[in-house]
């Protein structure tokens, strides 16, 4: 078979270049937008994804990790009685007001009180054992690399949280918070920083490790809603992480913004691509008309146009992928929160290809000019 579509694309690449660029940039924009939004909002669940707990126990109806409320520590007794439970670890969340010693302005900080032992569940993935060990010393904190400038401190400096003096003993990496600044400390220090004396012995969450992590769903169902321990609920780590990301995505309107932007990008891309393809089809109208005169059906000619659109889409995507990978790598090196999952990447690619397909369908109208009778006038 003579590859008319491909050969024309290669021979007349200048003519098709705007379409390839349009698909490429539309794909790139969608990919980067998705990566940024995912990156920003995945920091809402870093507390869960950066830890190795199988189950999270917290106040019922908690929609995001940062919105937790103290629960009755006796819930732990109930949990421990279940044979599937291997270990339980409390986690304290304290909202704090940060003041630098040099009188720098107040900053809202999320104080996360973790078990600083090397085998602690909380932030076991996000903090290396050597770093968390430094928190054993009272009134010490770790801040994230991305927030060092904002807080105006370096390792060794002191500052005040909720009026209590703390010392910075380390800098973490990848613990950027959403809407505030993460400050990691030990459980004991966090309890000292609590402004509400009633909740000093009430952890915000209980992290549960199971003997068999694969049973998380069943165990979570089983442990949920026992009477006599006050209000609490049990989620698997997966559920809770997802819940936190969705809260930010949907309740802040960011999700709608993303969909709206994707729609605009799609529309603009499709207009440019279809116009370019249509011009290319019209440019070959006489040749197409000759083929039709020779009996090559309109349906076959439409396939040639669609095939061209397919190659335009594939080439555009290829460019977008290469450029996208470079930009994402650049973003990561600059601590810009970006994240991509395989399904989201696939959706972006499908969107770009369907953009090309829609443009191909529109460009078929250019074949109307390929009337063989017009060649005889």
């Amino acid at each position, binding site marked *: 078979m*003579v590859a008319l579509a491909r050969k024309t694309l290669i021979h007349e690449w200048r003519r098709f270049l705007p379409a390839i660029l349009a698909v490429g940039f539309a794909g790139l924009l969608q990919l980067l937008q998705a990566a940024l939004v995912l990156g920003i909002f995945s920091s809402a669940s870093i507390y869960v994804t950066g830890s190795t707990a199988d189950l999270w126990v917290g106040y019922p109806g908690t929609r995001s990790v940062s919105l937790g409320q103290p629960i009755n520590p006796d819930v732990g007794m109930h949990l421990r009685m279940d044979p599937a439970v291997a270990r339980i670890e409390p986690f304290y969340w304290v909202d704090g007001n940060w003041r630098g010693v040099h009188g720098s302005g107040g900053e809202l900080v999320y104080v996360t009180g973790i078990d600083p032992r090397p085998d602690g569940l909380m932030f076991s993935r996000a903090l290396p054992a050597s770093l968390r060990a430094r928190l054993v010393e009272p009134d010490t904190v770790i801040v994230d690399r991305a927030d060092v400038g904002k807080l105006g401190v370096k390792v060794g400096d002191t500052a005040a949280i909720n009026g209590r003096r703390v010392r910075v003993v380390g800098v973490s990496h990848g613990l950027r918070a959403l809407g505030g600044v993460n400050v990691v400390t030990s459980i004991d220090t966090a309890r000292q920083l609590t402004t509400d004396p009633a909740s000093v012995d009430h952890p915000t969450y209980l992290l549960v490790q199971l003997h068999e992590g694969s049973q998380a769903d069943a165990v979570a169902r089983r442990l949920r809603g026992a009477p006599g321990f006050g209000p609490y609920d049990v989620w698997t780590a997966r559920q809770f992480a997802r819940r936190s990301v969705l809260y930010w995505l949907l309740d802040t309107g960011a999700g709608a913004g993303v969909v709206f932007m994707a729609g605009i990008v799609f529309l603009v891309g499709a207009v440019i691509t279809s116009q370019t393809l249509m011009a290319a089809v019209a440019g070959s109208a006489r040749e197409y008309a000759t083929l039709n005169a020779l*009996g090559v059906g309109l349906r076959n000619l439409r396939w040639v146009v669609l095939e061209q659109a397919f190659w335009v889409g594939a080439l555009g995507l290829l460019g977008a992928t290469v450029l996208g990978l470079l930009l994402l790598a650049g973003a990561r090196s600059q601590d810009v929160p970006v994240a991509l999952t395989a399904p989201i990447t696939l959706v972006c690619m499908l969107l770009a290809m369907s953009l090309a397909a829609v443009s191909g369908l529109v460009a078929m109208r250019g074949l109307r000019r390929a009337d063989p009778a017009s060649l005889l006038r």
Partner: protein
Amino acid sequence: MSAREPRRATPEASPALRAEGIAKAFVSGKVRTQVLEGLSLSIDAGELTLISGPSGCGKSTLLAILSGLQKVDAGRVLALGSDLTALDSHALERFRLRHTGFVFQGFNLFPALNALEQVALPLHYLGLPDRQAQERAMQSLDEVGMTPRIHLRPGELSGGEKQRVAIARALAKHPELLFADEPTSALDAANGQIIIDILHRIARSHGTTVLCVSHDPRLTHHADRMLSMEDGRILSDRRAEPLHHEA
């Protein structure tokens, strides 16, 4: 049926093309122009028939109608025994694919394809396997003397060579009917003569019915039959001396 197998036209053969009282008008805004009215005509198989006449006389419209590219307002067109006026556009495409070849004034070759690919392309749609399509395309290009240049693209060919590729493209399908519209008017004298010789040979050796619209006087020496048209009517219908048949 092979193109190599000569089909001698006999004077008694049934007409390859017959038009019966065909009429065609074009409407542009409020102006209606009657191009053809009640025209009847028979074209014999295996002959090179030339239609000439001043521009606007309706000769191109007649060619478009006889070749199934355009619908008539009234009348009937019979091509190889099929009533073209009764066929829908799909069936017309199929008819053209199986039975007709076209050569236009502009060569209409795809800039991206080389000569071999230009000729092989329609053959694929005819359902020929790759290898057979290639062989047939080579054969046709050989017949128009283009074998040394089969790997060149239109941009690397002269006007005459492009027209020879266009003829090979039409010829490779082994059509019974070959329609040519002003095939020499974009060419210089020498190249025009080559094209004329090829068309003449096609009618002679393949028994193909060649219907050619042209006002190139050189063509008249080669035609078996000359029709001259004016205002949508046929003014004269002359047959060449039998001597030309043997030429």
